[in-house]
């Protein structure tokens, strides 16, 4: 049996108390939400914080709040709920797709959206669609709160710009523009409890149903130290009329935009080839959606 090392446990009732406790711990504390990543790392002896600060009893952090032209998703919301809310499925289908392939049903009932972000795993499922849709996140400490673009949050595997006294409180997603569509595909050896070999999230916006592409985001995951933009693919798409030929060209460019490594799950060469396939498939699905949307 894998045992957990000893630690203290705090369960603040609100955010300001949580910030105070975390600041007082001076880097020896860790936030626990779902614990599906943190407790595994603690059992393996990879991290040993002296105190865990639970955000599980803080009101407002486990909900989705629709606002005027955006939604706020509390960081402690479990991944299963992203697959259950009709609003997410309807308005942010790409996020729904990514949430429904994360871990297993059992993991999804504990793992949180915030945890999937702050752990900064290169193969995490939620960041690619969130970055593609331009999500922002809120970070709070004792002194105040800041809002930053999610894509500026990640530095590398396990590394982010979060300060040791900051708490990720939630994610802000703007309402998708008219005539936009997105798709996320994860390639793994099996369908559950799998870390992606390659995953791609594509999001495109047209000026009208049969118009030109005014914005394109192609996010590649598991092929670099963090989720990256397929820069040359995006450039090729913007300003053009979407055709199969254009999508094929963009997909081909995307495979040159990544810098994967060989590992137990797949070779770099295979990953590049799969980036091309998945980029093509996600762009085709995104386009179909964009033509239909409103």
């Amino acid at each position, binding site marked *: 049996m894998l045992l957990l090392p000893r630690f203290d446990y705090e369960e603040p009732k609100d955010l300001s108390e949580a910030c105070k406790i975390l600041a007082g711990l001076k880097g020896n504390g860790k936030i626990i939400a779902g614990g*599906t990543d943190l407790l595994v790392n603690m059992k393996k002896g990879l991290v040993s914080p002296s105190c865990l600060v639970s955000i599980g009893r803080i009101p407002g952090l486990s909900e989705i709040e629709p606002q005027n032209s955006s939604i706020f998703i509390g960081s402690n919301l479990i991944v299963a709920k992203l697959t259950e809310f009709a609003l997410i499925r309807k308005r942010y289908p790409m996020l729904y797709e990514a949430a429904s392939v994360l871990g297993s049903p059992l993991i999804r009932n504990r793992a949180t959206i915030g945890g999937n972000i702050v752990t900064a795993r290169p193969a995490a499922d939620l960041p690619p669609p969130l970055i593609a849709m331009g999500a922002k996140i809120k970070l709070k400490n004792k002194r105040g709160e800041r809002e930053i673009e999610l894509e500026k949050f990640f530095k590398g595997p396990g590394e982010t710009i979060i300060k040791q006294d900051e708490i990720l409180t939630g994610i802000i997603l703007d309402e998708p523009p008219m005539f936009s569509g997105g798709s996320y595909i994860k390639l793994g050896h099996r*369908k*559950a409890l799998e870390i992606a070999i390659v995953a791609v999230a594509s999001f495109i916006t047209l000026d009208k149903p049969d118009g030109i592409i005014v914005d394109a985001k192609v996010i590649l995951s598991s092929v670099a130290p963090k989720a990256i933009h397929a820069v040359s693919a995006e450039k090729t798409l913007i300003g053009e009329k979407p055709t199969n030929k254009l999508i094929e060209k963009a997909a081909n460019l995307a495979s040159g935009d990544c810098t994967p490594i060989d590992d137990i799950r797949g070779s770099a060469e295979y990953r590049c080839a799969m980036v091309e396939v998945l980029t093509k498939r996600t762009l085709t699905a995104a386009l179909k959606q964009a033509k239909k949307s409103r």
Partner: protein
Amino acid sequence: MKRLINLIVNNKAYEIAVAPNRTLTQILREDLNLLGTKEGCGIGDCGACTVILNGRPVNSCLVLAVQANGCNIQTIEGVADGNNLHPIQEAFVEYGAIQCGFCTPGMVLSAKSLLEKNPKPTEMEIREAISGNLCRCTGYQKIVEAIQAASKKMKKK
């Protein structure tokens, strides 16, 4: 330092003093002597430790007992009604869905959660629902058949 927590396990209330580093699996097995919940991998991969926590099946090896304070928990011991097996348990016996038995409590609880939400699941939905529960005897086919049979049986009642 130990903390006092309250749990409702299989409709029975408990007050227990626990150290923060003990998991829900440990408390159920070691303090409450409910040995039906198994610990396999201890890292959320195998599902042998599945319990239903506030209506949702979870890996109890990745839940701190202190996090479960105030929660309602169902373990495999709470599934049968006295000496009468639950229709899912009956179907597991009938269809030979149990070999070594180690995954069975988790499989039954994942199946129960599925059938409560979705009484008439497709084969794919069943496979998806038990995808976090590993059976190393590889008896998946019979497990899926048993859940299908249980779904029919429960509909008739």
